């Protein structure tokens, strides 16, 4: 239908930055409004495209709608989380528990680059410092606020580990309205700095409320009441794997397949048969003609399949991480076969051990489901 692209574009722009469940609800509500308006305009004599445009005009600028929706659904949530995390953190004080849970503020990655520096870690999934401190102390972890060279930080010493310093922040995003009164730390920074500095094996397991293991200590990120989807955490893991194993990619722009950082949400959904253990996380990389890199991540389902979005509809898989440069398609001619790299995460987060493998699904070619 010729009218769909502007509608999709509007809905994406208007709902960008909302949590996934919220986004779906708001999208449905706005879509219904627009289609109803457009239908009335068609009845009044406009053609389909004109009717849709008229409906979109009556709604107003999508950016304006997004700012209004974010003011309701995103900003206050940060404040509520500050209080909620304290409350839930306190619940984990019961000494009979062997593992602890901490609530995590869901967020999509806000920063990353492909240079080999810690400053480029994506920030995703925020943990309230006070809540985390309570939970970790319950597990016998020594937690001490310190002032590191880069600013405020937490120093953590797990049983049998070396001290690890993790920076904390009051700004959870890039805009002033995401500054909070409480301090938070990024789940990505926590996981990867522990892996680098603690001297203990560190692993991650699970997509919703993943369990972080540091030596013998287990910490569940997220709670039943406030589930944490570890999309940002696993895309961070994929990036780490790429940094370690793929050729350097200085100056490359990274786009996530989902989330507000992307200029758009990728729509080419590929369902791939990988016949792997359910829950194992896979990533899909595609690149645009200027070298920009598009990344998605998802867990394997009960049928041994994983559904990932890519930049291209028709893709052919390359077999090695070293082939990442081959993913860049020529600018012309368009419509030519495009390449993709399928990544498998091992779950280990260990700088000394490769945690990302290139793999090829059943059938080396995939055509998107839609």
């Amino acid at each position: 239908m010729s009218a769909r692209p502007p509608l999709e574009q509007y809905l994406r722009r208007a709902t960008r930055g909302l949590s996934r469940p919220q986004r779906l609800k708001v999208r449905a509500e706005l879509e219904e409004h627009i289609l109803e308006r457009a239908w009335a305009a068609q009845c009044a004599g406009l053609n389909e495209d004109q009717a849709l445009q008229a409906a979109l005009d009556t709604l107003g600028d999508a950016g304006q709608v997004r700012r209004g929706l974010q003011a309701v659904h995103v900003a206050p949530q940060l404040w509520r989380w500050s209080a909620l995390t304290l409350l839930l953190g306190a619940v984990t004080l019961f000494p009979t528990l062997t593992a602890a849970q901490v609530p995590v503020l869901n967020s999509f990655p806000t920063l990353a680059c492909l240079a080999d520096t810690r400053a480029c870690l994506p920030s995703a999934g925020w943990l309230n410092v006070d809540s985390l401190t309570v939970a970790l102390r319950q597990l016998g972890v020594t937690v001490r606020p310190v002032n590191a060279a880069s600013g405020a930080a937490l120093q953590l010493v797990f049983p049998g580990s070396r001290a690890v310093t993790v920076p904390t922040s009051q700004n959870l995003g890039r805009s002033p309205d995401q500054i909070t009164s409480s301090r938070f730390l990024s789940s990505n920074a926590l996981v990867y700095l522990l892996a680098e500095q603690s001297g203990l094996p560190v692993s991650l397991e699970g997509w919703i409320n993943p369990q972080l293991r540091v030596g013998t200590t287990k910490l569940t990120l997220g709670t039943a009441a406030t589930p944490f989807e570890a999309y940002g955490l696993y895309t961070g893991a994929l990036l780490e794997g790429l940094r370690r194993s793929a050729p350097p990619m200085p100056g490359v722009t990274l786009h996530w397949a989902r989330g507000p950082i992307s200029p758009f949400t990728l729509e080419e959904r590929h369902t791939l048969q990988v016949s792997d253990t359910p829950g194992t996380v896979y990533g899909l990389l595609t690149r645009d003609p200027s070298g920009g890199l598009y990344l998605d991540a998802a867990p394997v389902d009960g049928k041994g399949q994983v559904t990932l979005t890519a930049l291209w509809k028709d893709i052919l898989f390359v077999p090695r991480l070293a082939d990442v440069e081959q993913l860049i398609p020529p600018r012309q001619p368009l419509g030519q076969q495009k390449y993709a790299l399928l990544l498998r995460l091992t779950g280990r987060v260990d700088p000394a051990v490769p945690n990302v493998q290139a793999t090829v699904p059943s059938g080396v070619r995939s055509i998107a489901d839609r």
Partner: protein
Amino acid sequence: MPPREQLHGHLDLILLTLLEPEPLYGLRIAQEAQRLTDGYFDFKEGSLYPALHRLERAGFLQAEDREVGRNGRPRKYYCLTPSGRTELTARQREWAAFRQAMARLEGQA
């Protein structure tokens, strides 16, 4: 058409008033606002949703899914909650007091 700031300043009161007689969904709220004011309240309809969601979060409105709309999904109707009715009464009183004060002021002029 009133200045946009004026409209937005009173959007909560307008929405609560429109929803007092019966539950409505987003587009119908916009249409009723235009119909009942002969087109005077002609705002960008996208601004309705943040306001409706804010009032819902505040507990003044309750949303419920009803008949299926043009996208094949249930339409979301908003209805006033008891605390929404209390809020509406309070805001109507404030507005009436403001209007009386303005009338007195104009009588002086």
